[in-house]
């Protein structure tokens, strides 16, 4: 059995892993489905039945213009999936590049990168998003850029101790002495050692990006106008909260459940990947 299958199976075993895998699987599924079908077209509105409570026709009710909440949430799931995935990619690449700089043999590069990360890390994501939104307007790209940048910095700082530990090992020393190039050493020796920490952080970043999107969209610097997203659904239901409190329930619930799933996914993945905590992996490898 391949290592990947072993990892999946170990994750499935624990209740938390099961929950995470199911929710995430559903998320991807719904996103894919929404590309071709939603119960109602997004722009289809039924003015006579605005703010309706859940009925057979509209399982999750309707919003202020009579559009179907369920459809908008389904469509929103693919936007959030895109944002989360892209943020992970950007943060991962940026973060790893920074880590490579922070453990490099060139003292100047090393010191500068550490200094830069420490300086920039205290700047909140929302301010970066605001800064970017002025020239570029509110869009998904702005969210991804701001989150990717901020989380990448965070990632670099958290992963650094593990990377340093790996860089100081005998293994790496001997590889360097035998002439291996810096990047080769990094990819083959250091990266595998920081994988567990990295993966947990990346899943948490994915979760945080969803939370960030909700807040940023509400503030007006998130996804563009009319783009479906969970933040959008949450933000639109806010305005009439005192009259129709239930509309707020669904988007908030979905966001929370997904973020929990992402966190649990990260934890379960870390346990499953580490041969120390996962005995089955040792046999498969």
């Amino acid at each position, binding site marked *: 059995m391949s290592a990947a299958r072993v990892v999946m199976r170990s994750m499935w075993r624990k209740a938390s892993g099961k929950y995470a895998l199911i929710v995430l699987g559903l998320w991807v599924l719904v996103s894919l489905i929404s590309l071709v079908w939603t119960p109602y077209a997004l722009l289809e509105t039924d003015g006579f039945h605005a703010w309706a409570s859940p009925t057979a026709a509209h399982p999750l009710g309707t919003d202020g213009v009579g559009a179907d909440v369920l459809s908008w949430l389904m469509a929103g799931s693919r936007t959030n999936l895109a944002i989360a995935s892209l943020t992970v990619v950007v943060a991962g690449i940026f973060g790893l590049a920074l880590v490579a700089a922070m453990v490099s043999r060139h003292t100047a590069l090393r*010191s500068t990168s*550490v*200094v830069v990360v*420490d*300086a*920039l*890390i*205290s*700047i*909140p*994501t*929302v*301010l970066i998003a*605001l*800064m*970017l*939104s*002025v*020239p570029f307007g509110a869009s998904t790209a702005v969210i991804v850029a701001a989150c990717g940048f901020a989380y990448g910095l*965070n990632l670099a700082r958290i992963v650094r*101790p593990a990377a*340093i530990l790996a860089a100081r090992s005998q293994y790496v020393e001997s590889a360097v002495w035998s002439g291996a190039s810096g990047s080769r050493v990094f990819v083959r020796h250091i990266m595998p050692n920081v994988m567990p920490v990295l993966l947990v952080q990346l899943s948490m970043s994915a*979760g945080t990006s969803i*939370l*960030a999107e*909700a*807040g*940023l969209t*509400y*503030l*007006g*610097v998130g996804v563009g106008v009319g783009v479906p997203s969970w933040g959008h659904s*949450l*933000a639109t239901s*806010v305005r009439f*909260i*005192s009259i129709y*409190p239930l509309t*707020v329930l669904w988007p*908030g619930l979905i*966001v*929370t*459940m997904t*973020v*929990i799933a992402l*966190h*649990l996914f990260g934890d379960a993945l870390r346990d499953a990947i580490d041969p120390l905590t996962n005995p089955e992996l040792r046999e498969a490898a």
Partner: protein
Amino acid sequence: MRFVAKRLLLFIAALVGLSILVFLALRVLPGDVAAVMAGTNATAARIAALRTQMGLDRPLPVQYVDWLGGLLHGDLGISAISGRSVVSQVGARAAVTFPLIVLSLAIALLIGLPLGCAAVITRNRRWRGLFHVLAIVGGAIPALWSGLLLILLFSHGSGLLGLFPSQGFPNDGWKDCGRAMASLVLPALATGITAGAGIMRYTRAALGDAAQSQAVSMAMACGMTRRQALLRVGLRLSMPQLVSVIGLTFAQMITGVMVVENLFALPGLGSMLITDVGNRDLIAVQSELFLLAAFFLLLGLAVDMAHHALDPRLNTASDDVQEVL
């Protein structure tokens, strides 16, 4: 001392870098800055007037130096929309936002630290599981949602238990402390809970690590009970890392603060910034953005200094901070 000097230098360099970044970001606009500010219906004459008024016809470096000079003198520019100086508004707004931030942080610490410690101290598996769930769920709730739920539960008039106002801030500011404070309770709770969950997770992780350390075992060997050893020695030893991490949480809290200011209609710095961005009032945005970001840089500085002070291994002997992780 070498560390302090180095760190201060770093702070100043970062400030300068930040100012350049903010300045440039707002000039990288498709189209003409003055046109954007004047709006779509403006006449050519209006745009030209605006340009001269704002000094936008001068070369970039000159504008930058002018702005910087103004900042140092406490002159943050004139808002193109309201015509008033930015500075006059900032004061009143800050009087709402800063107490809100402090209150949120206090709530976050009051929730996170004790719960995080309890999660490690307890020997009961059920409780440990409960704490774990609490931390995960608490950290997954967007501030927007928790704010809304709090409004539903506690606001005057519409909530289940009408305890706190949910909209606005008293016009006469802090003159009536009770009312002013009451307006901040729900917003602070909304932001504080999410941040608190994060702090709880970090405290639990740090204390959990410390629990395995020889220092805690030795403290127990000297005659402390496990709980005493964890709280007196374990916590103290994890303090430096905790301070750093809490500092980061603080910075992330700003999103929640801005959301909450909007949600609860509080006239704070966050909502001012958002409105100005929406209005494309670039001059005002420039200074406000810089100020807010600079505040957080200052915070980062304070946190680093605290970290350094708390770790005795870094205080005496060498200042080679990079090595001592």
